[in-house]
């Protein structure tokens, strides 16, 4: 049987406001336990919330960047459930009138553009953090530093059709939130969290299959792996004639499987009702427009501009604009550079390779964009071979030294003196009469061999293009 997979994502992004959502405590990751707390964010009797304006502004920024309608009238609601990390035993959230709705996000799948619907974006507050001791300890501890940190929840339509699409969507969304400078989007630290709803159905069937919700995926890769696992699990169960249980499952990264979660902290019904301690949010069109006007350039616009301004291929531009950091790095390097395509190749090649291999962020890579630009210049000028340049690059991010210095220290400067190369080639031709004859008889392969011999004779330092040219001249 052929199946179709249906996926929708719920993404929570912690907003990097200076203060919490409903009190003036600092919004900060880490910090000593229970030190960024007050009666409001610890849910003391009689304490009252006051909405942080920045939270609304950031959420509207996200809404506009994701092509949403912004609600001119919205309100907050209480989502009620018991859990030790939820001090008021309700979370201030938005229920029936979210701040933003009906948006969309474009992703590129197999070179084709696909539009993913965004159902809604609403504002809410984060809960505190449970600290679980070792197995022998019979208690858990609660830290409320995170309690009341502002969040937006971005809910997609069930428009995603594969785990890869889900990953591309999240990657793109993460990029946009970073471009907007409203969230750190660190999945490892939990400032970006993603829950996925997945179901499968036989191709041609209209109704959705029974879905499961997957939690605890701490990276883009984990999201894709978890969904691939879950997709297979659904298909297998259905193929074997079984039925899917609607439930929440937790991704176990180490084991590479999803496991059923007991539904702790999950009420049967959240008993939403309008938050009486806060008043409705009524936005003015002019204010929304002023935020729209101040939106930074977003990935799609930037991609188009890169293609136009730097003449690089569409594919390169889409990779380079995925994150703001990478795009800025590329641009700082490519701006005014003679060879933007080479810059693009280097950034997409070596830079991304090293980041991936070392699992580091761009800013941890010890290379200034200008230095990379000059490295590429050295190649273009024939001072460095491509292989030599790669060696220099390795040294650059290890030591932070400039390419000009490294070329000489590593002894990689190419011989580009034509006279010296002619001498060298002549000597090689004398020593390889057989090959010369072969070449003249039409065996073009012999030329490659001769180039190789010349490079060897120069200990790899001769400029290969020059050798090629001189060889051809001398042989003709």
């Amino acid at each position, binding site marked *: 049987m052929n199946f179709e997979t249906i996926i929708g994502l719920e993404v929570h992004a912690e907003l990097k*406001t*200076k*203060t919490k959502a409903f009190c*003036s*405590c*600092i919004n900060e990751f880490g910090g*000593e*336990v*229970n*030190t*960024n*707390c*007050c*009666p409001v964010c*610890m849910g003391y009797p009689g304490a009252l919330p*006051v*909405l*942080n*304006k*920045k939270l*609304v502004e950031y959420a509207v920024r996200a809404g506009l960047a994701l092509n949403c309608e912004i609600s001119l009238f919205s*309100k907050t609601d209480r989502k009620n459930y*018991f859990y*030790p990390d939820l001090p008021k035993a309700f979370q201030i959230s938005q229920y029936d009138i979210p701040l933003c709705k009906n948006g969309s996000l474009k992703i590129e799948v197999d070179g084709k553009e696909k539009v993913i619907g965004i159902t809604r974006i609403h504002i809410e507050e984060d809960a505190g953090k*449970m*600290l*679980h*001791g070792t197995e022998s*300890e*019979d*208690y*858990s*501890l*609660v*830290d*409320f530093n995170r309690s009341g940190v502002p969040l937006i929840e971005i809910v997609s339509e069930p428009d995603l059709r594969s785990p890869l699409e889900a990953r591309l969507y999240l990657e793109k969304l993460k990029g946009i939130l970073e471009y907007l400078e409203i969230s750190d989007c660190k999945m490892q630290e939990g400032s970006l969290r993603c829950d996925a709803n997945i179901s499968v159905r036989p191709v041609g069937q209209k109704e959705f299959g029974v879905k499961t919700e997957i939690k605890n995926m701490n990276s883009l890769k984990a999201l894709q792996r978890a969904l691939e696992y879950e997709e297979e699990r659904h298909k297998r169960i259905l193929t074997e004639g079984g039925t899917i249980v609607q439930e929440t499952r937790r991704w176990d990264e180490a084991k590479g499987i999803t496991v059923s*979660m007991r539904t*702790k902290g999950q*009420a*049967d019904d959240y008993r939403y009702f*309008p938050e009486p301690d*806060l*008043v*409705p*949010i*009524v936005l003015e069109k002019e204010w929304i427009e002023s935020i729209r006007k101040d939106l930074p350039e977003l990935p799609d616009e930037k991609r188009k501009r890169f293609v136009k301004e730097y003449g690089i291929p569409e594919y390169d531009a889409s990779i380079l604009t995925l994150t703001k950091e990478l795009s800025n790095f590329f641009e700082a390097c490519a701006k005014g550079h003679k060879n933007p395509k080479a810059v693009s190749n280097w950034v997409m090649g070596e830079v991304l390779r090293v980041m991936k291999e070392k699992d580091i962020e761009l800013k941890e890579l010890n290379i200034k964009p200008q230095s990379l630009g000059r490295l590429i210049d050295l190649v273009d000028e024939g001072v460095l071979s491509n292989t030599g340049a790669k060696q220099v690059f390795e040294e650059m991010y290890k030591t932070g030294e400039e390419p000009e210095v490294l070329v000489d220290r590593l002894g990689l400067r190419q011989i580009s003196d034509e006279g010296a190369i002619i001498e060298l080639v002549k000597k090689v031709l004398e020593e390889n009469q057989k090959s010369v004859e072969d070449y003249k008889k039409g065996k073009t392969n012999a030329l490659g061999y001769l180039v190789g011999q010349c490079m060897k004779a120069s200990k790899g330092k001769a400029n290969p293009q020059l050798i090629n040219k001189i060889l051809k001249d001398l042989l003709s």
Partner: protein
Amino acid sequence: MVEKNELLKMASIAKLKMTEEEAETIVKKFNVVLGTASLFNELDLEDVEPSYNINSVTNVMREDIPKESFEREIMLANAPEKLYGCIKVSKIIE
């Protein structure tokens, strides 16, 4: 009409213990109070907007300016059980 069993279910959701007998004694009062909602049936409420703030106050927001948090000792002074600067609760297995 709310049945006794329904009441017992509500109690467990609200994290309250309730015996069958206790439920028995309040179920009548419960229904008397909630039953008065049927009075609303006389009204045409179709086009009436729910009221959120009775004074129609809107848009009360504060600037994103930090203020000093409370000292941890003060915030934990009322805690029934605490450990390592945290509130202590029963072990939770996730």
